[in-house]
């Protein structure tokens, strides 16, 4: 399998089967480091499955793939998961812990200093809600908490699954700004979304999916 020297994701005929159903049916893809890609498509097209495959959250059934230097068929997927930041469209943290407690847990798990948490909460605008239980946060605030979790981790590969769902204008603008900053810092960001990104200054690569395949690729 050949890929460019700066490839962070390379997939060849990647198939993912779950419960006998092909979520991905032969994806071919190369993604370079430090880029922003948006994966669009209808419901059931395979957007989330693609992100989960790249993040080592689901196994490769056939084909070949490498993500962040790890072979998706035979490599250590646990190590791959440590290298990515994941924001799902379901909740990404513990509902019965406060925002602060969730981040303390993540920081201790990662071996990060606890005093970094204050800065992260401020960055995502949750300082005033740090002692609120996660289940009592609004949808937008929960998304921000999920981002805070990733910011603590500082991964090189960000996987954001429909981050704009349930967000108001302010929330969407915030996300666009944050994604822009993250890409500028050298990380690779892959976003799945029904709609293209609002900010035209981001110039994402747009991958269109249907039937578990990448059927369109443009900027």
């Amino acid at each position: 399998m050949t890929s460019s020297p700066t490839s962070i994701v390379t997939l060849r005929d990647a198939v993912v089967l779950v419960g006998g159903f092909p979520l991905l049916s032969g994806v071919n893809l190369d993604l370079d480091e430090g880029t922003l890609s948006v994966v669009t498509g209808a419901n059931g097209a395979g957007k989330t499955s693609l992100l989960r495959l790249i993040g080592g959250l689901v196994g490769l059934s056939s084909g070949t793939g490498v993500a962040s230097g790890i072979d998706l068929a035979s490599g250590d997927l646990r190590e791959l998961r440590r290298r990515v930041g994941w924001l799902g469209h379901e909740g990404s943290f513990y509902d019965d812990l406060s925002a602060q407690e969730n981040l303390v847990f993540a920081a201790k798990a990662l071996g990060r200093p606890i005093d970094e948490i204050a800065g992260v909460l401020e960055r995502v605008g949750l300082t005033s809600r740090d002692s609120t239980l996660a289940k009592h946060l609004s949808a937008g605030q929960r998304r921000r908490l999920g981002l805070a979790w990733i910011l603590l981790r500082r991964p090189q590969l960000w996987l954001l699954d429909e981050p704009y769902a349930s967000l108001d204008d302010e929330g969407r603008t915030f996300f666009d700004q944050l994604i822009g900053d993250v890409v500028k810092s050298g990380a690779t960001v892959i976003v799945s979304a029904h709609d293209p990104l609002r900010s035209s200054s981001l110039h994402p690569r747009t991958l269109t999916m249907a039937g578990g395949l990448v059927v369109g690729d443009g900027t």
Partner: protein
Amino acid sequence: MKQLSLRLLGPLTLVLMGLTFWLGLWVTPPDKIQGNLARLVYVHPAVAWVALYVSFGTATIASALYLWRRTRSQVMDRVAHCAMEVSVVFILLTLITGSIWGRPTWGVWWAWDARLTSTAILGVFALAYLALRRANDDPDLRARRSAVFALLAAINVPIIHFSVQWWKTLHQGATVFTANRTLLIHGLMAWTLLISFFAFTLLFFWLLRARYRLEVLRGERYQVVLDEALVQRRREGVR
């Protein structure tokens, strides 16, 4: 050599089973105290031996080999699954023959004897294994979880073994040997008992082989279904 031994497995099993039943039912004398009821000694202990040690042991070893990366393969998963299915049959036979023997001896079909109870628990373990397999669609996850569960269930086997010594029990003690390895039954009865152990052990392997072949065929059919699903899914992308 392997093919020859597999071909001989069925006929040899048939011959030994026939010999066991002929010797057990007609040739050997009835017991002094239990009379003809004691002829169950040529069935029940052998069936219990296969249920508790051979079939469960095969499933456990195959599961352990599946969990070890070097020997992990679909073959091991299939062997574990098939062995556990056959184990259910033999555990059931153990309980049934035990009840038939127990009714005239103890006066009841079921007694809360340690070994009977533990064997029944092992039967539920085997059924739970099969339930666990049915609850998981993903083949790899199913195989891994089943393998771990089989190892956990194997912990129960030594408990059964020691239960005869540690728990107050109606069950007779060791059937064949005393604690200091003195043989308890003699002559033709001993030989028939030995043949029965071989016969039922071969029966287990014969059933395992038949079940395994069925599983291979199922796997091939499943692959055809998967291939069709893949084609169908790709068509969605073309439209």
